[in-house]
């Protein structure tokens, strides 16, 4: 990694040139909500002026650039009782601007999922390789808990990462492509003062977290609490709408569907993002549902995020962005659910009472 500093006007110029030459997406204000707060979303941008560099949050995550909601994975053309199957990996080169560290960490997790194992996904690979990611750090929001998940910093998975140090940006350059682009702009090597400012910035970010979720030993804890009534309590509130999975930056479960073309001369097989909270997620043909209750499905989601994935990939899949918590219509959020689980056991009377003396 190479470190450079760039003044803010010069950085704007760089972004402007990059955006005008490529298809670019960045945070833009699209609306205001009922509190009068601006609503941001990753949208196509035409110039640097379109981008809200100081955005607070986007409701939907950047995963949709890699895992689109709907995607044709192959197409069949029928001819005389036979067919021809076409498979295409289409990927337009895309520049993504303004991803937060947790978002980039989420993309890294998706890399582990989609590109490792016995069957790497070519669809994902084509998209991932054609994406140029510019990350930016930010001061945490009141409900961010990425520090608890250790996802508040990022060291790989981006092309360029910018830290705001007053009137300059401290750039971490992670690809030759980004380095090449920056050659045409006025950048400088960081001075000791810049380094100090970066350290100060990091410290400030670290100290600004106001939400803490205790995840130490959580996989084991979830195993113990498998039959806990807490799941029933939160499950009763769940509406099975699947919003949490749609906004989650790492949820990647999908369903494969086939649809006939309207002229009936072909059909297409499509991936569609799915949610484990939807009722028929584990329903098999014949009608047996392996997770019939709300609480079963909610529990499974938490299990996959904090337990199952930890066993498979030695990391938890949650990045702590709290998008699911913000989007949930009934106020289910990971912080409350996990703290509730912990509290139930820690306030248990038989456990906290003193144990008998050994003889």
């Amino acid at each position: 990694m190479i470190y450079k500093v760039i003044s803010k006007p010069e950085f704007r110029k760089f972004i402007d040139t990059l955006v005008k030459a490529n298809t670019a997406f960045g945070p833009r204000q699209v609306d205001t909500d009922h509190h009068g707060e601006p609503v941001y979303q990753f949208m196509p941008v035409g110039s640097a002026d379109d981008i809200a560099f100081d955005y607070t949050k986007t409701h939907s995550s950047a995963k949709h650039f890699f895992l689109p909601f709907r995607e044709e994975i192959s197409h069949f053309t029928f001819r005389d009782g036979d067919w021809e199957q076409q498979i295409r990996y289409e990927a337009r080169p895309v520049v993504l601007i303004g991803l937060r560290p947790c978002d980039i960490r989420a993309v890294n997790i998706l890399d582990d999922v989609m590109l490792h194992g016995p069957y790497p996904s070519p669809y994902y690979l084509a998209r991932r390789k054609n994406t140029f990611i510019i990350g930016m750090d930010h001061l945490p929001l009141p409900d961010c808990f990425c520090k608890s998940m250790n996802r508040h910093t990022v060291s790989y998975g981006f092309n360029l990462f910018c830290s705001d140090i007053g009137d300059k940006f401290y750039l971490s350059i992670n690809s030759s492509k980004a380095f090449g682009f920056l050659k045409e702009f006025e950048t400088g090597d960081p001075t000791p003062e810049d380094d100090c400012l970066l350290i100060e910035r990091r410290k400030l970010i670290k100290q600004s977290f106001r939400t803490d979720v205790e995840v130490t030993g959580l996989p084991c804890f979830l195993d113990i609490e498998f039959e806990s009534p807490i799941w029933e309590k939160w499950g009763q509130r769940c509406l099975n709408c699947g919003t949490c999975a749609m906004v989650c930056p790492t949820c990647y479960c999908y369903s494969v569907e086939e649809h006939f073309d309207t002229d009936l001369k072909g059909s297409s097989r499509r991936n569609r993002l799915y949610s484990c909270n939807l009722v028929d997620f584990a329903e098999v043909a014949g009608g047996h549902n392996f997770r019939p209750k709300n609480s079963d499905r909610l529990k499974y989601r938490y299990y996959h995020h904090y337990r199952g994935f930890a066993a498979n990939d030695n990391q938890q899949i949650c990045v702590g962005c709290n998008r699911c918590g913000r989007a949930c219509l009934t106020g289910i959020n990971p912080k409350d659910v996990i703290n509730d689980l912990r509290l139930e056991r820690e306030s248990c009377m038989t456990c906290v009472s003193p144990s008998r003396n050994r003889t």
Partner: protein
Amino acid sequence: MHDVRFTIPEQDLNREPFTTKIPDFQKKSEVMITDRGYKCRITNIVRLSAQERLFQLRIVDPLERDVFSFRPGQFLMLEVPGYGEAPISISSSTSNREFIELCIRKAGHVTSALFEAASGAMVSIRGPFGTTFPMEQMQDRNILLIAGGLGIAPLRAPLYWINDHRDRFGKVWFLYGARDPGQLFFDYQFEEWKTVSHIELHTIVEHPDANWTGRTGLITSLFDEISFDPKETWAIVCGPPVMFKFVCSHLDRIGIPMNRMFVSLERRMHCGMGKCCRCMVGATFTCLDGPVFDYWSVMNLKEAI
């Protein structure tokens, strides 16, 4: 000038074409065209009951037919173009390289479309996927096969295997239970298994009809008919989800070690490649780590059986 385009080299995308050579699954970061299936022609359809039929398929391309090989217990993704895909366990002999047999119940969208098809129609298959019954490790041991209803479908492959290598195994018992006598499939093969393969076959039904002369009850009541040395016996169990619990805990009580009991699970599957997560049980993919599990690892999984 600021073109961020990155084209994946063609050989990187499809280093080893799925259709002409056996892909090396151990090699990481190998990108294959895994969504291309083998075209098959339905050569024969055997009606087993009102809802179940046995489909015999033959891969059209001779090269692909040579490549396609599987082990007992594996499944494949059967595709009816335009309708979708369904995971189906292979129930033919591994030594039969010409035809693939699939025992299918008409239950969902894809299978209903398949039941409309006549002999000669074309379907597509992807696979084989999943883990296998460790037939080599079972050598020189007694084998206890237990099937309930349509659970016989994945058990036919190990049955054929035992038939092919009968001298390598000790005694073989096959306990087969069903809801009613009409649900006892492949009864035309019972005599062959008994006399040719020397398999001790015991059948039982839950709800007998007027012609039924055999035993009535649940499959666990068949255990008093046979006696075996649990230390020298390996078990293979497949059936409806509720059956596993009773049968496996009974075998555990008798004394068969948990890592010598194998179950074949079913889950909803959409990709077969460990990506879509539909078949996930806790941390385990039924398509990659299964469908054949030993009872020890299944017992440790929450909500598996």
